[in-house]
């Protein structure tokens, strides 16, 4: 089981907890609001109350001790920052995702030690804007999430010694052999940044690079087979 710590049983926190409610994950919820802790326990999650006087509780719930990911999604911006900072202090390799209220806060949170940030208001506003301005795009995105089991976004790591190890992207006609859309990749040489293929840069694929594709499970299986040919 993968250990996940969720700080803040806010609306976002609640939805994350619901999505992670299966055998694959062991989720511990911490919150400084006793009412929310009670609510979380009532709804079937394991939640603990904390007051953040020291870092003891963070270590107890597994930070620096097996926890893989920390979600800081409480409604209190400064507490999110505080918990992010404390957790980063304990564990340098922990993956931390912090909720922000506005884009301008992103830099602050990254500085505090968050790996990524996310804003429900950004996502909500972008969705509303798409419905107004790009109705067909939102239709397609809805279709894709409705067809979740059939078509989804997946990532494939290029294995060492495979057909694509050391090949330039433009040299392989990947596009049409399998019914997959190649969205982008993470080039290990260029650091931890995702690059869309649509940027038009010709990358050299190496073992360890990760390609993100959109398509059905079957076709992704076909691609994985192909890599070994």
């Amino acid at each position, binding site marked *: 089981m*993968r250990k996940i710590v969720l700080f803040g049983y*806010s*609306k*976002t926190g*609640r*939805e*994350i907890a*619901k*999505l*992670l409610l299966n055998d694959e*994950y062991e989720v511990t919820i911490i919150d400084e609001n006793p009412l929310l802790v009670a609510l979380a326990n009532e709804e079937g999650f394991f939640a603990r109350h904390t007051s953040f006087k020291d870092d003891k509780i963070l270590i107890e719930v597994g930070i620096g001790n097996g926890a893989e*990911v920390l*979600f800081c999604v409480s409604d209190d911006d400064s507490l999110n920052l505080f918990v992010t900072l404390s957790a980063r202090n304990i564990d340098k390799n922990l*993956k931390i995702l912090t909720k922000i*209220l*506005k884009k301008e806060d992103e830099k602050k949170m990254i500085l505090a030690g968050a*790996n*990524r940030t*996310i*804003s*429900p*208001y950004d*996502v*909500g*506003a*972008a*969705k*509303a*804007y798409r*419905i*107004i*301005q*790009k*109705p*067909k*795009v939102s239709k*397609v995105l809805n*279709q894709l999430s409705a067809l979740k089991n059939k*078509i989804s*976004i*997946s*990532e494939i790591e290029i294995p060492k010694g495979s057909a694509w190890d050391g090949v330039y992207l433009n040299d392989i006609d990947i*596009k*049409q052999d399998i*019914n997959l*859309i*190649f*969205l*982008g990749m*993470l080039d290990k040489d260029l650091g*931890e940044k*995702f690059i*869309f*293929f*649509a*940027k*038009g840069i010709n990358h050299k694929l190496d073992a360890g690079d*990760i390609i*993100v594709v*959109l398509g059905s499970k079957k076709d992704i299986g076909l691609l994985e087979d192909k890599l070994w040919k």
Partner: protein
Amino acid sequence: MLARLIVSFAYFLESSKRYKRVKTAIYNLLENPRSKIKPYFDIFIIFLVLLTVSILIYDIEHHLPYHFEVMENIAVSVFIFEWIGRFWISANLRLRIIKYHERKLELEEKPKLSTILKIIFQQKLQYIFSPMSIIDLLAILPTYRPLRILRIFLIFRLFKIFRYTKSLNSFFKVIKDKKFELNFLLLLGLFAVFMSSTIMYVFEGGGENPKIHSFLDTIYWSVITITTVGYGDITPVTLTGKVITVFLVGGGFLILVLSTSVVTNALSEKMSVVREGKVLSQIGKMTNLIVIFGFGRMGQILAAQLKKGHKKFIVVDISDENLEKAKEFDYLYMHADASSYDTVNNIVFKNDVKKVVLTTNNDALNLSILLSIKAKTDKIGIIARANSYENIKKFHIAKADHVIFPYQTVAEVAVEYIGNSVKFDAIDNILVQKESITIDEIDILEGSDYIGKTITQIGLDKLGVTIIAILKESGKEKFVFNPHHHEYRFQKDDSIVLIGEEKDIFKIKDEVARQLL
């Protein structure tokens, strides 16, 4: 007999398309606040008024050249035409007569001439004696030669300008609202003037002061003193007179200061109302308006995006703190309680609204606005934000066109972060445009060169964009995922959904638009 003639004439007018067309044109020119031509006509009339008044001033010392008189006559003709036009459109007589006739028919009675005449005269006389009509008439009448003596009334033409300036009207409304305070101050002033002039007359009117000959002189002195003008042509000579003057100046100063503060206060109180009226008339002229209820964080981000996309929108919120932001970014905004029907009526129903976005963090309020709109019309698309999972269903029951539950979407994206961050970044970038990469759509309309060609033939695959899917308006298959680059041929009304650099997509859009020209 005459009654029947009038009735049948009313029916004739009702059936005449041309009559209605002319009347609508006149209405657009003179009264319709939303017509495009009215502002120009208003400016033209103001120009004419200023011109004729200038001619009047010039006339006093000079002999009027011939062409000036022609100009004056033209101006007056325009004024006459304007007044007749307004008189004509002031009431819809034919509809009232027809209504009256139909009622009589139901009762199986004959229409009475007297009642018909009453309808006609009542309505039209009411217009003639309305203040605006009287000002218009006073501007026209002095031109008539035998009434030349009334030339001074030409100055009334200046009042005509009031008709065209909304801000002056609102100023008078402000004064009206403070009637009680101003009346009180006026009474106080009158009292002070009467009192001081009487005392002055008693002590200095009997020959003590050579300048004072009558009671009228002391009233004149009192008014000049109380208003702090102080010409100094009449000055007190006795000690009593001087003491009175000191009190009068002090009191007068107080009254002046008080009335100034009453008016300024009233004005600043009414500023928001005046501003709102302006905003309402501004949005009244817009088409395809988007209304955003709630200017919290989501509303602010959405507004910023809409502004970037050059969309017309207005923001409605009740919190001053939020609206301060709207003011800062120079958005159209309205301080209003969205739960009241009047707000929805004024902003949504009275204008050409295409979409309404409900982004408040209160589901009850969002639902209430949604229902007030949906109860009246189904033509406006509504996008609602749900704030709790349990309420999503209620929004669907209330027939919201789209329901956004941001927390769930965010959670779905957040959970992807557990695996490898790559996938998270991809989805996050697609959902919230963070870089120059965007997901967009391009419509293939009839007449486009793309029709019948494949993606490779057009060269779209060389442009560095990633085509996700084709959406089709008609046909069996509505959604083609990952269209084959060599095999899929574009058809009329296809929409391409693609990911790419903003500038690349713009280039393609530009080309598609040029093909249609």
